[in-house]
C-alpha cells in the first residue's frame, strides 16, 4: 500500500468514468444516468399524479367536507345498480374473452410460422385501429337497420329485427373485440413455453389424448390465463365509449356515470367519489393478483 486508504472510494462499478459525484448525490444514491429519470418523474407527478390526488381529495371535500358523496353512492340503489352492472359486465366480458382467446392461442401454437404471423397480426388489429371507429362500425353492423338484421330479414329467417344493440349483447360484442389481444398474448406466451413432451409423455403413459390435454396441458396454462383474465377484467371495469355507444340505459357502467355526473349534473365531488372507487378497486385487484402472477411479464404482453 503506497498511501493511506482514501475515504469514500467510489463504490460504483460504472465502466464509464464520470465526474466525481458530490456529497448530496451520494446521500440519495442517484448517479448521472439515474438523474435522466428526473424529467419524466417530475412530469408525471405534475401532470398525472397531482390531478389524481386532487380528484381523490375532491371526493371528500366537494361540495362539503366529509363522506357525503360516498353516503349518496351507497344510499342510492340506482348508483349501486350501475356499480353492480359494471362488475357483472366486466365479468361477462372476461369469460367471453377467455372462451375465444384460449382456442385462438392454442391454434397459434399449432400453426406454422407463417400462419402464426397472420393470426398474430389479426389479433393485433384492435391495437392499431381506433376504438371509436370499431365501436361505430359495430353500430353499423348490429343496429336494427344494420348489416346483420338486413341479412337475416332478407333471408327470411326473422320477421322483425333482432335487438343486437342497446343491450348486453351489443356491449359484449364491442368490448370483447378490444380485450381479446390482452388475453390471447399472455395465454399464447405461456402455452409456447409448455414442453409438449409432457403431453406426449402423458399419452405414452396411457392417457387418452383428450384427458392428457385437460389434465396436463390446460393446468400448465394457468399463469397465462390468470394474467390475461386480470388484465381483461381491469380494462373492462373502466370502459366508457363502447358501453355508451352499444349498450342501453340498463347497461350503464361506472365510466359513463362519471362522465354524466360531470357533463350534465356538474357534480364533481360525486364523480370524484366514483372515480376513487374505481381506482381503488383496480389497484386492489392488481395488488392481490401480483402476489400470484408475475404481471410485469404480461402487462406489455407484446411478443
Amino acid at each position, binding site marked *: 500500500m503506497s498511501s493511506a486508504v482514501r475515504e469514500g472510494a467510489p463504490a460504483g462499478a460504472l*465502466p*464509464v468514468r464520470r465526474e466525481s459525484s458530490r456529497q448530496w448525490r451520494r446521500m*440519495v444514491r*442517484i*448517479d*448521472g*444516468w*439515474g*438523474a*435522466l*429519470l428526473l*424529467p*419524466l*418523474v417530475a*412530469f*408525471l*407527478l405534475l*401532470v*398525472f*399524479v397531482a*390531478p*389524481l390526488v*386532487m*380528484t381523490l381529495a375532491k371526493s371528500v371535500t366537494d361540495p362539503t367536507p366529509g363522506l357525503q358523496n360516498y353516503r349518496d353512492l351507497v344510499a342510492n340503489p340506482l348508483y349501486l345498480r350501475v356499480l353492480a352492472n359494471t362488475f357483472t359486465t366486466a365479468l361477462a366480458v372476461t369469460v367471453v374473452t377467455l372462451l*375465444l382467446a384460449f*382456442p*385462438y392461442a392454442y*391454434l397459434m401454437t399449432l400453426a406454422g410460422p407463417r400462419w402464426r404471423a397472420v*393470426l398474430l397480426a*389479426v*389479433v393485433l388489429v*384492435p391495437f*392499431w*385501429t*381506433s376504438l*371509436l*371507429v370499431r365501436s*361505430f*362500425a359495430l*353500430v*353499423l*353492423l348490429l343496429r336494427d*337497420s344494420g348489416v346483420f338484421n*338486413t341479412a337475416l330479414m332478407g333471408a327470411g329467417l326473422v320477421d322483425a329485427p333482432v335487438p343486437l344493440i342497446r343491450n348486453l349483447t351489443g356491449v359484449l360484442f364491442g368490448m370483447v*373485440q378490444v380485450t381479446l389481444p390482452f388475453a390471447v398474448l399472455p395465454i399464447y406466451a405461456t402455452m409456447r413455453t409448455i414442453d409438449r413432451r409432457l403431453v406426449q409423455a402423458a399419452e405414452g403413459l396411457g392417457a387418452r*389424448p383428450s384427458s392428457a390435454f385437460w389434465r396436463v396441458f390446460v393446468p400448465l396454462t394457468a399463469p397465462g390465463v390468470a394474467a390475461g383474465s386480470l388484465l381483461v377484467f*381491469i380494462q373492462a371495469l*373502466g370502459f*366508457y*365509449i363502447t358501453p*355508451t355507444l352499444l349498450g342501453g340505459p340498463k347497461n350503464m357502467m*361506472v*365510466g359513463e356515470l362519471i362522465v354524466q355526473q360531470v357533463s350534465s349534473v356538474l357534480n364533481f365531488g360525486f364523480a*370524484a367519489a366514483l*372515480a376513487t372507487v*374505481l*381506482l381503488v378497486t383496480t389497484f386492489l385487484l*392488481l395488488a392481490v393478483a401480483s402476489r400470484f402472477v408475475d404481471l410485469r411479464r404480461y*402487462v*406489455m404482453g407484446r411478443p
Partner: protein
Amino acid sequence: MTRLLVRGGLSALALVTGIYLLLPVLVVVPTSFSASSFLKFPPEGLSTRWYQSFVDDPSWMDALSTSARVAVLSSVCSVVLGVLAALGLVRGRFPFRSGVTALVVAPIIVPYVIVGLSVYIAFLRLGLTQTTVGMVLVHTALAVPYVAINVASGLATFDRRLELAAMSLGAGPVATFFRITLPVIAPSVLAGAVFAFITSWDEVVVAIFLSGPDLSTLPVRMWSGVRVQIDPTVAAVSSLSLLATVGVFAGVGAAALARRWVRRHRAPLIVDLQGATS
C-alpha cells in the same frame, strides 16, 4: 381422425374470431362511399359526398388539424422524456426503483375515464382545458410509457462496449450518444414514437373531458357525430383515420425496406466515403 377434427374445429373458431375482429374495419370503408343520407351496407350507389362534407365542414377541419398537431407534439415530447427515462431505468442507480417503475407504467393502467376526470378538475383551475398545451401534456403522459418500455427493452440488449470503443476513438459523451447509442437503438425509439403517435391520434376519452367549443380533436368530433344521431360523415372520417394509421405503418415499413435496399446495393467503394455522412 379426432386430431384432424379438433384442428378443423379450432381453425373454424379462429376464422370466426378473425372475421369478428376484422369485420368492423371492413364494413366502415365501403359504407363511407354510400350515396344515401342514411348509411347502409351494402351502400346503395357510390359517392364521395361524405368525404366532401368532411372537407367542407370547418369544424371537421379544425378537429383534424388539432389532432395532427396534438399527436405530433405529444409524440415528440414523449420520445424525448421516454428515451431519457429509459436510459435512467436501464443504466441508472436511483432510489425507490419499484416505485419509479410503477409510476412510469401507471398511465397505461389507470382507466382513461379517471385520468380524464382528474386532469379536467386540475386543468380547469389552470385554464388548460380546451387548449393544445393541455391536450399535449395529457397525451404525452398517456403515451410516454410505451416509449419508455420499448426503448428500455432496446437498451437492455445494447452492447455498451460500443460506447467504450467510440470513446477510445475520440468521441465525447455527447457524440457517443448521438452517433452510436441512438442510431443503434433507433428501431425501438421509432417503434415507441409510432405507439405514441397512435395513442394520441386515437384517444377519445380523456380528450372528451378536455374538449369544448373552442377546441376538440378528431375522435371527439367523431364522438359527437355518433353520440346522439349518426352523422354519415363519421364513416368517411373513420376510413381516413384508418388510412392514417395504415399510412404510418406503411411509411415506417417502407423506410426500413428502402434502407435495407440501399445498404445492399451500396457499391463497396471507398469513394462512397466522401458522400456518406456517418
